[in-house]
């Protein structure tokens, strides 16, 4: 019991000790150190990838369950206990399904697009602070890195739309790109106001700036938090901002032509993005892994899932909005509000 507690509370120390031990072992063999570094990076990557996949599986299940609750039905309940293995089954189904490539698609780009969408989501995990010291790399430009890398996924979506050689897909991809670029602006502005308070781009510093619950930026930046949630929700193309893949209009938009494995990647990316947005919201506004009694890692997961639940709540509460309203909402409301928020924060930081 003590051991488990120790592992949970002092994960970073244990990892560091393990690294130092391996380092010593390695030096006794007189081998070049960069191989060890690469091995460690690979290990971390594997860990993150494993977390990502299982987490996605769980989120999908969770999403369906929550949806069912909102719609007063049971949801998946046949495979495994309360349908807990439903997503696993679905995944297996997707993996063994035939991969259909339409004749007129641009083969290379069509193949590349899912990875272009998924890889950025995966890369962002580099700076997600799962717990105290549990961050793959605490970059100097942490949050900027997040913004930059998430921006890359637009390329994949556009490519998917273009390569499908299908007007619905193309329109879906274009809509998605427009939407992501538009909502990036209020999001960046909100993040800037948070950065004004934290004074650093580093994830660790941002979390340290919210050392007590009263300093959580959600209380300092309530409007910022709401804006971030809206913009983040739009960034990951979820309802009510899921126009790019709107089934009723665009027959699922840029993923229309995708099936099987490639479709699985899109799916995976979507739920990974959902988790990511929530994780970043947690980091920026909810004090990250900080919290009493429970271990930091657990606190982080709890907070993130709270935000995820909130986003799902949104999904089932608001109807999908029209495309021109979507753009108007960003440019005419969110951006000005974010600007005012930023300026107010700046004045606050300067004079108080």
């Amino acid at each position, binding site marked *: 019991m003590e051991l488990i507690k120790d592992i949970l509370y002092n994960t970073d120390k244990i990892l560091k000790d393990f690294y130092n031990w391996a380092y010593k072992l390695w030096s006794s063999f007189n081998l070049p150190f*960069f191989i060890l570094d690469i091995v460690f990076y690979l290990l971390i990557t594997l860990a993150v990838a494993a977390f990502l996949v299982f987490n996605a599986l769980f989120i999908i299940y969770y999403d369906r369950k929550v949806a069912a609750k909102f719609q007063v039905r049971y949801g998946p309940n046949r495979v495994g206990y309360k349908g807990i293995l439903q997503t696993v089954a679905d995944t297996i189904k997707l993996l063994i399904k035939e991969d259909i490539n339409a004749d007129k698609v641009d083969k290379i780009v069509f193949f590349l697009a899912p990875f272009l969408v998924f890889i950025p989501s995966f890369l962002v995990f580099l700076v997600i602070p799962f717990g105290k010291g549990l961050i793959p790399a605490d970059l100097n430009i942490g949050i*900027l890195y997040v913004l930059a890398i998430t921006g890359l996924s637009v390329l994949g979506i556009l490519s998917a739309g273009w390569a499908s050689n299908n007007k619905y897909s193309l329109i879906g991809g274009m809509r998605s*790109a427009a939407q992501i670029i538009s909502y990036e602006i209020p999001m960046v502005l909100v993040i800037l106001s948070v950065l004004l308070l934290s004074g650093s*781009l580093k994830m660790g510093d941002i979390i340290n700036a919210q050392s007590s619950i009263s300093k959580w930026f959600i209380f300092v930046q309530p409007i910022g938090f709401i804006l971030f949630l809206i913009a983040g929700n739009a960034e990951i193309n979820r309802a009510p901002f899921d126009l790019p893949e709107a089934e009723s209009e665009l027959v699922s938009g840029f993923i229309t032509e995708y099936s099987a494995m490639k479709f699985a990647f899109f799916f995976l990316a979507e739920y990974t993005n959902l988790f990511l947005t929530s994780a970043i919201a947690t980091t920026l506004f909810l004090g990250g892994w900080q919290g009493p009694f429970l271990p930091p890692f657990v606190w982080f997961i709890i907070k993130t899932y709270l935000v995820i639940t909130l986003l799902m709540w949104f999904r089932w509460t608001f109807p999908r909005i029209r495309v021109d309203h979507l753009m108007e909402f960003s440019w005419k409301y969110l951006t000005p509000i974010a600007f005012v928020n930023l300026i107010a924060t700046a004045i606050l930081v300067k004079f108080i």
Partner: protein
Amino acid sequence: MTSLVFFYIFAVLIVISAIFMVTSRNIYYSALWLALTLFAVAGIFVLLNAYFLAGIQVLIYIGAVVVLTIFVINLTKEIEGKTEKQFNKQTIPALLALLTGIVLVVLAVLKTDWASRIAGWTNYDETAKIGNLLLNDFVIPFEAASVLLLIALIGAIAIVSLDKENK
């Protein structure tokens, strides 16, 4: 050592993707190659310890410029180069000019005595410094740049927007 390896990886990536970008018959591929080039340039920035610039590079160039370019590509026809010529008649002189230029400038650079000018290498957090400089010493260029962006924004809207009468 490690950095040299990474430099060569990025350099080869940059050169190859740039060549493909320039020569690709399909303009959409060009755009993707451009994205790769820019991403590799960001890697070069990381090698140079300019993390902030690397972030900006990815954020603005790939996230905005390339996406915008792809947008315009999607809005125009003739992206496929199977029947249409993608290169004009001056390809061969341009190729010659390219090679001569590279050789000449490289020779000139090799002639220069750089070693005596190298002042050393420091690692430091340039982000805060950039911020300070931008809002102190460079505040006027900074504001000018913001005005420039605003003008570009309005100008682009003005150029592209259709008149109501024309509709």
